């Protein structure tokens, strides 16, 4: 079925199936990150206080679309304690426009110049002695606007005569492309049934509990800048930040802070960096700019996909899925900074876990007067899973094939891996039927069906959901630009680095390039070091590198961190361990091949009493050059950069996008809901999930990621949504309107794991960071559907708010589609 050439093979000895001898990889080691977080001693960016530091605040546009006629800052400047007030034009003299990944001419500055294009766009910024005074100053700025027509509806925005968001573009359709993989027309022609859905996935946002922020400190004397922030790209794209900040790349020092959650929203945070950067340059003093919640919701780039799908799945009579067509209108908002990266991402798994032979992917990226899209957990694959699984459920209905059975018939079989999907991405491994079977088992489906029947007799509506979805993991930034032919950027690797050293007393220290973003990098790194040296993870010290190390790290994102950190740490460990073996062998007058590292000692194979401790070797390596092998330099330090384990470039004609996201986890979710069709209230009664993310590095931590993701998925399914008024005003600017689940909306969630190791990665690990949210929304939609089946309801729009559910019930009653 598929051929995969040039795939790397990795040493997977130590995978649980082949080697039960692993000691630390696979164990639920308690998190090393916890104590400082629990004690309130971790330093988040809002906790950074530098001598003489000022505080920033932003005046934001109340209008979705307006021309700025005039700005009068004189009253604000007169307020005692105000150090600087900058308009967009003034800030533009200090910092440059924000870096953009789009090829189209859509310039964006952190503070608007002449025109605002979304509600909440920054109009002026202030630095003052404290945030209170800074906000006083914002309130004293007088802005005169000429209100322009707001473009709110993405379909209306596509009309040739629609109000243009950017005069630099010919139309509000910033990007359109149709990509065919395989012979779609022939497959549809031979299909017995084509099921269709028009589905709506509204915009939601990451909403980490901590907002984005930066403390920037400009030193005018040596033209250098130090920036504390909660970005994770300080070791990936620091040059891009330097360009924006107007600092030479080798004089920008970016220091990571503990981060209060991101979920994809804090990669770039170029707005806060530019605001803090402009204010420190204007004042010559350190400036902290930390978004408040309204800043974050209205203007942070944490908004996810906002799509309208017209989707078709073609099947044979016996339910074989043969072709998928996705026509997508995606409302990108007012700017296009990250281009169509979320569609590049979606290209990793549009056909899901199924053997679908051909794909047509037609995407229109449309600009409107809303805050631009950024990234949010799922990053484009989330609505894809929603739509595909809805189509599969619909096919199950129309063909009269049980929904588990139709999936089973179409799953890629274990022996077909590595499997090349129609767009070219490769899936590494999996056993999807086993996951499905186990999920049905732990959910106790028969018991729930009986309960459903019992409740229906009482006029109550219980529903059992089912979804089987992919989670592509280990991203590769090529997806940000490979839908373009032009500029034809080559594929990237998106690497991760660590620096490991063993000191003279044998202590192991690892400096990592990623920040603490809520993940568990210290724990993972310690487990890997412990595994490789046979020492206790508690004895490993882990610190966070700033941007001056020069070692590349892309950090968390795209469910990559555990894959990449274990690769980097294992590589560095092996380099140092091998050097220590050589030094020990030299000291013990043996051949290095006869020396092994066991339990933190280096000993003769077969004669364990002949050994050296890590401290003995460490001291020798650090101080006694003449007692080490001739070819060895002093010291025990290694930087290991682990490149993406398996990526291939897209073909020039884009008939094959290449392997770019090949570590593919899989899950089956079975939520149980009860729906009150009169009030539209959906209550989750239970939730079952079986997940396969390859070798589990740390089962407890993986479960934490999955459960957390599922609850975000519950939010996506039932609650979370940016809403805009007809005039483009944002109706959901605080947590009182943008609703996320609380403890009360969450049922007991049962998670189980299967382990199909990846052949591409160290230890066989795959990612697990996004899976919960990638599966839960569509699974819950399926459950609501199942509950309301007697009423003829078909769910094709999320979130299923009480009003939407009541509307769906009424629509079904009236025979509306």
């Amino acid at each position, binding site marked *: 079925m598929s051929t995969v050439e040039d795939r790397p093979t990795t040493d997977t000895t130590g995978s649980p199936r082949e080697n039960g001898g692993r000691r630390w990889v696979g164990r639920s080691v308690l998190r090393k990150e916890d104590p400082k977080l629990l004690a309130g001693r971790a330093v988040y960016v809002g906790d950074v206080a530098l001598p003489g530091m000022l505080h920033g605040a932003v005046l934001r546009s109340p209008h979705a679309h307006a021309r700025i006629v005039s700005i009068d800052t004189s009253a604000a400047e007169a307020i005692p304690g105000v150090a600087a007030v900058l308009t967009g034009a003034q800030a533009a003299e200090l910092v440059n426009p924000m870096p953009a990944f789009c090829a189209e001419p859509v310039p964006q500055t952190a503070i608007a110049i002449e025109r605002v294009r979304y509600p909440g766009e920054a109009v002026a910024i202030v630095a003052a002695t404290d*945030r*209170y005074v800074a*906000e*006083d100053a914002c*309130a004293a700025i007088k802005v005169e606007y000429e209100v322009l027509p707001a473009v709110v509806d993405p379909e209306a925005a596509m009309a040739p005569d629609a109000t243009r968001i950017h005069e630099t573009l010919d139309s509000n359709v910033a990007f359109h492309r149709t990509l065919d993989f395989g012979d779609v027309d022939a497959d549809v022609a031979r299909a017995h049934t084509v099921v269709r859905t028009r589905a709506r996935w509204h915009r939601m946002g990451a909403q980490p509990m901590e907002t984005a922020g930066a403390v920037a400190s400009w030193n005018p004397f040596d033209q250098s800048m130090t920036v504390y922030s909660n970005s994770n790209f300080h070791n990936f794209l620091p040059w891009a930040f330097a360009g924006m900040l107007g600092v030479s790349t080798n004089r920008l020092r970016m220091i990571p802070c503990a981060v209060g959650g991101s979920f994809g929203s804090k990669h770039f945070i170029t707005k806060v960096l530019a605001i803090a950067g402009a204010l420190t340059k204007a004042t010559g003093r350190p400036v902290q700019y930390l978004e*408040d*919640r*309204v800043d974050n919701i209205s203007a942070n780039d944490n908004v996810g996909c906002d799509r309208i799908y017209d989707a078709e799945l073609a099947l044979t009579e016996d339910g074989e899925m043969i072709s998928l067509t996705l026509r997508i209108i995606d409302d990108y908002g007012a700017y296009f900074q990250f281009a169509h990266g979320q569609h590049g991402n979606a290209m990793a798994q549009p056909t899901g876990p199924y053997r679908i032979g051909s794909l047509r992917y037609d995407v229109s990226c449309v600009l409107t007067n809303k805050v631009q899209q950024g990234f949010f957990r799922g990053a484009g694959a989330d609505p894809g899973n929603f739509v595909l699984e809805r189509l599969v459920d619909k096919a199950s209905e129309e063909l009269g094939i049980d929904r588990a059975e139709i999936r089973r018939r179409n799953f890629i079989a274990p022996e077909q891996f590595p499997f090349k999907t129609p767009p070219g991405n490769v899936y590494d491994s999996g056993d999807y039927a086993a996951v499905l079977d186990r999920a049905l088992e732990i959910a106790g489906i028969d018991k729930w069906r009986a309960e459903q029947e019992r409740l229906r007799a009482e006029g109550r509506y219980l529903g059992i959901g089912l979804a089987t979805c992919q989670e592509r993991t280990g991203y590769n930034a090529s997806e940000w630009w490979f839908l373009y032919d032009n500029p034809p950027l080559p594929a990237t690797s998106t690497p991760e680095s660590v620096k490991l050293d063993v000191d003279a007393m044998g202590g192991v220290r690892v400096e990592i390039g990623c920040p603490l973003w809520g993940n568990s990098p210290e724990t993972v790194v310690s487990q890997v070091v412990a595994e490789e040296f046979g020492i206790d993870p508690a004895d490993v010290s882990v610190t966070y590198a700033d941007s001056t190390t020069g070692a590349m790290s892309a950090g968390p994102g795209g469910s990559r961190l555990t894959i990449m950190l274990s690769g980097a740490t294992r590589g560095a460990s092996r380099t140092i361990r091998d050097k220590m073996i050589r030094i020990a062998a030299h000291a013990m007058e043996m051949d290095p091949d006869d020396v092994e590292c066991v339990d933190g000692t280096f000993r003769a194979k077969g004669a364990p009493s002949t050994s050296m401790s890590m401290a003995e070797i460490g001291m020798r390596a650090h101080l006694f050059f003449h007692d080490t092998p001739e070819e060895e330099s002093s010291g025990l330090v290694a930087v290991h950069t682990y490149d993406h384990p398996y990526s291939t470039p897209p073909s020039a004609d884009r008939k094959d996008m290449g392997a770019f996201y090949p570590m593919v986890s899989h899950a089956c979710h079975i939520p149980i809901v009860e729906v009150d069709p*009169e*009030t*539209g*209230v959906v209550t989750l009664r239970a939730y079952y999930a079986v997940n396969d993310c390859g070798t589990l590095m740390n089962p407890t931590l993986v479960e934490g990621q999955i459960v957390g993701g599922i609850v975000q998925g519950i939010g996506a399914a039932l*609650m979370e*949504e940016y*809403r805009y008024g007809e005039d483009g005003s944002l*109706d*959901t600017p*605080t947590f*009182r*309107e943008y*609703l996320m*689940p*609380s403890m*009360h*909306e969450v049922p007991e969630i049962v998670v189980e794991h299967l382990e199909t190791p990846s052949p591409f990665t160290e230890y066989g690990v795959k990612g697990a960071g996004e899976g919960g949210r990638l599966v839960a929304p569509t699974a819950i939609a399926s459950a609501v559907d199942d509950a309301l089946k007697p009423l003829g309801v078909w769910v094709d729009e999320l979130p299923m*708010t*009480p*009003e939407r559910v*009541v509307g769906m019930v009424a629509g079904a009653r009236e025979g509306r589609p």
Partner: protein
Amino acid sequence: MKPAAFAYLAPRDLDEALDQLAEHGADARVLAGGQSLVRLMNARLASPAVVVDINRVPGLDSLAVTNGSGPATLRLGATVRQRTSELSPDVAAHAPLLVEAGAHVAHAPVRSRGTVVGSVAFADPSAELPTALLALDGRVVVRSRAGERTIEADDFFTGAFTNALDAGEMVVAIEVPGSPPGTGSAFVEVARRHGDLPVCGVAAVVTRSDDGRVSSARIALCGADERPVRARAAEDALTGSDGGADAVAEAAARAADGLSPRGDCHGSPDFRRHLARILTGRAVSTAVHRAAGEA
């Protein structure tokens, strides 16, 4: 999101508080629990020049059932915390509706500080406690330097976030009259999230006479109009009926008559009217059963 500057006054007794309110008039806001006011001030949706903190005024924290010449009356002072009220056996015995409705208000840490009277005075058209007070036929006791007056709850709520207080006046207490035997009450609501303000909520108080007929019905709605409102048409449908399923259905069908809800991101006007009908049916049904002494 930080409040604008204001002058802070902390009167030591009621007279001092009333003097300060008289002096500053409309520039002053009374601060009790602050769980709504401080939120608005943080967002600069309220920027009073003067804040009069009444938390140190003695006597305002009294919660008592008085048996004067007339029927027993529950009186809650202006600084009685919602949490205190909901845990009070007196309130549970005298006005269980206040407890039932109050349990829906936000979360324990907010109710520990927030006051019942503060919620009433704030007059949020979506809030539970004003609606409960309305259904309970409660009264609002207000004071100024000129003296004290009592305002019927129905006259107190004049619009969204507006009340019948004059400048210089403050609410010192609310009063809830006792209910005759054969009275049952219920509060039901639909909120988007536990603890959030409801999209719509219904408080019902039903009294049945010895023959089982509904002798009195008071139904109040939140989230269904510009202010907490009585559903008079529904009450009329129920009053004099046998309280059976048909009567309840009739009351429910009329519950939204004449309502003009404001729509927002949690529910359109139409949806709120829909919920008003559905929830009225449920609240009334429960209240009728409770009036008959059933669970």
